[in-house]
């Protein structure tokens, strides 16, 4: 079940076509979707009953197919560039050419006021505290900053960026300057949730990875995907803002450290 779907998807991508049933939000065809749900369910079940890590990988693969089946949303299509928004003259992401690169968008609700979150984010030097792929951000003044990120295989990638379009307690946008290794742009939006339920934080990132669109797709399969990354970053941002720390087990004791 899973293999034939992948083949179908691959073919369509090779032809540069969107699959049947394609709409902007639901990009997996209806039939394919049910097939995903059923096939994914069986896979997940199969994976879960095997108490091994291999089992989990299977369970998770199954679960992601279920997810795709029930939401009609396939990340691979996005990562492969199908479904990304066309460029428009009012596109704020001018540093990444329209029709190129990867765009990701994620939201999280945080139990803090928009002002508290805005102020923390506005100091870009705070970003590496929750964005794990960033090594350092240095504010160089005048709305400009220097960013150092972990690149592939132990290298690092650097660029200069400027912030623009600041709306106090509502929105912060930034973009890399001309000549950056990785052209990128981003914005974060803070909207009060109803009845004092904190703040909805939405982050939009767009960037052009060095190896092109397909590079990101491959990266995604190996876990360094932009979608996952921003999701994890936002989760850590929420933990930091709500609890003052980020949950971790790194460095804890176990029977593995005993060399057993």
């Amino acid at each position, binding site marked *: 079940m899973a293999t034939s779907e992948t083949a179908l998807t691959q073919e369509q991508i090779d032809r540069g076509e969107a699959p049947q049933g394609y709409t902007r939000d639901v990009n997996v065809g209806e039939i394919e979707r049910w097939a995903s749900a059923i096939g994914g*369910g*069986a896979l*997940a*079940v*199969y*994976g*879960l*009953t*095997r*108490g091994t*890590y291999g*089992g*989990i990988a299977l*369970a*998770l693969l199954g*679960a*992601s197919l279920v*997810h795709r089946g029930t939401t009609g949303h396939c990340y691979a299509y996005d990562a492969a560039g199908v479904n990304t928004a066309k460029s428009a003259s009012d596109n704020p992401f001018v540093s990444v050419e329209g029709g190129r690169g990867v765009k990701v968008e994620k939201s999280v*609700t945080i*139990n803090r006021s928009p002002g508290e979150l805005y102020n923390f984010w506005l100091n870009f030097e705070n970003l590496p505290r929750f964005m794990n792929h960033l090594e350092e951000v240095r504010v160089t003044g005048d709305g400009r900053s220097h960013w150092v990120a972990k690149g592939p295989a132990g290298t690092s990638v650097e660029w200069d960026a400027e912030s623009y379009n600041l709306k106090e307690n509502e929105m912060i946008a930034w973009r890399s300057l001309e000549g950056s290794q990785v052209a990128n742009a981003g914005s974060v939006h803070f909207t009060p949730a109803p009845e004092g*339920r*904190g703040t909805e934080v939405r982050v939009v990132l767009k960037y052009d990875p060095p190896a092109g669109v397909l590079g990101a797709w491959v990266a995604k399969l190996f876990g360094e995907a932009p979608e*996952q990354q921003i*999701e*994890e970053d936002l*989760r850590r941002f*929420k*933990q930091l803002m*709500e*609890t*003052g*720390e*980020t*949950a*971790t*087990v*790194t*460095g*804890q*004791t*176990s*029977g*593995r*450290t*005993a060399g*057993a």
Partner: protein
Amino acid sequence: MKALCWFGKNDVRVEDVPEPKILNPRDAIIRVTRTAICGSDLHLLDGYIPTMERGDILGHEFMGEVVEVGGEVKNLNVGDRVAVPFTISCGNCFFCRRELWSLCDNTNPNAAIPEKLYGFTTAGLFGYSHMTGGYAGGQAEYARVPFADVGPVKIPGHLEDEQALFLTDIFPTGYMAAENCDIRPGDTVAVWGCGPVGQFAIKSAYLLGASRVIAIDRVPERIEMARTEGRAETLDFDDEYIFDKLKEMTGGRGPDSCIDAVGMEAHGGGSFDAYLDKAKAAAFLATDRPHALRQAIHSCRKGGTVSIPGVYGGFLDKIPFGAAFQKGLTFKMGQTHVQKYLRPLLKLIEDGKIDPSFVITHRMRLEDAPQGYHIFKNKQDNCIKIVLKP
């Protein structure tokens, strides 16, 4: 230090491992004075819970003495004696603020795994697989307790460790199971499973005003404890007429609420659906064996409540959802919101309304924990609850 580690299905060993360290400002380190083995640990032992790794330290029921606190823990001092909830919760998020502590947003470092499986993440748990955070557990000489400023409760000096230990899990779990039944005067509550959780559910149902409790199991000493300690009427689940008997005992109406304190590894007696469950689980067509749950749904009176403290993790087959729908049942379930119950239940203990140590049948050294797992799993030696002393 010594710690009980998981190495695979039916393979747990006591190993020498490094002592835990403070990793975050809201951490504390506890010297464990008592810890227990739980029915939930058996699901790990039996390989029913995915995302376990060789060398994981087990144990989520533990108490002890504070030996070190992180910079942000202001309410605890070195030397305090505390019981530690098995749920790791931040106290700050939407869910913690609503007392839904086991659904905490912020304490699972592996949130991505449950998000894939369940849509959203739930709280981190001690010693309960990497899906719930991969936190090292408390069947050890020392344990790291994250968010120690909101979790652990101080135990007054005049209570014995054994009286306070079960505040960490099974007493609140049985109590929440009964509370979820929304018991009214005159109610009959049926409880599947007379393990430790079932025993506390029985006592709690009476504490919350039930008129009758009917308990179901087949292990003689557990049935006996339900009868003598719990004052419950009892049924043997090998008896194939459970439904008819329950109906008969309740004047043809059925129990007002039904508690499934068995969970995903229910035995089916001689019933046909149970054979199918086993076959399906073996053939990877289903993950859990929900025999008790099916029976609870089928037996519950119209408009009644099915309360499920028993743990389920995956996909359940042939759940009589039509019966649940047509009878207008209410379902309540989930990991226990332990922090919500710590202080009220501690008060019940202090007031002498209950002494939770009644459930203990075995006291062992931590070194002997693997043997403890073995006899608890196989219900040997009249074992109902084992307490370990590191």
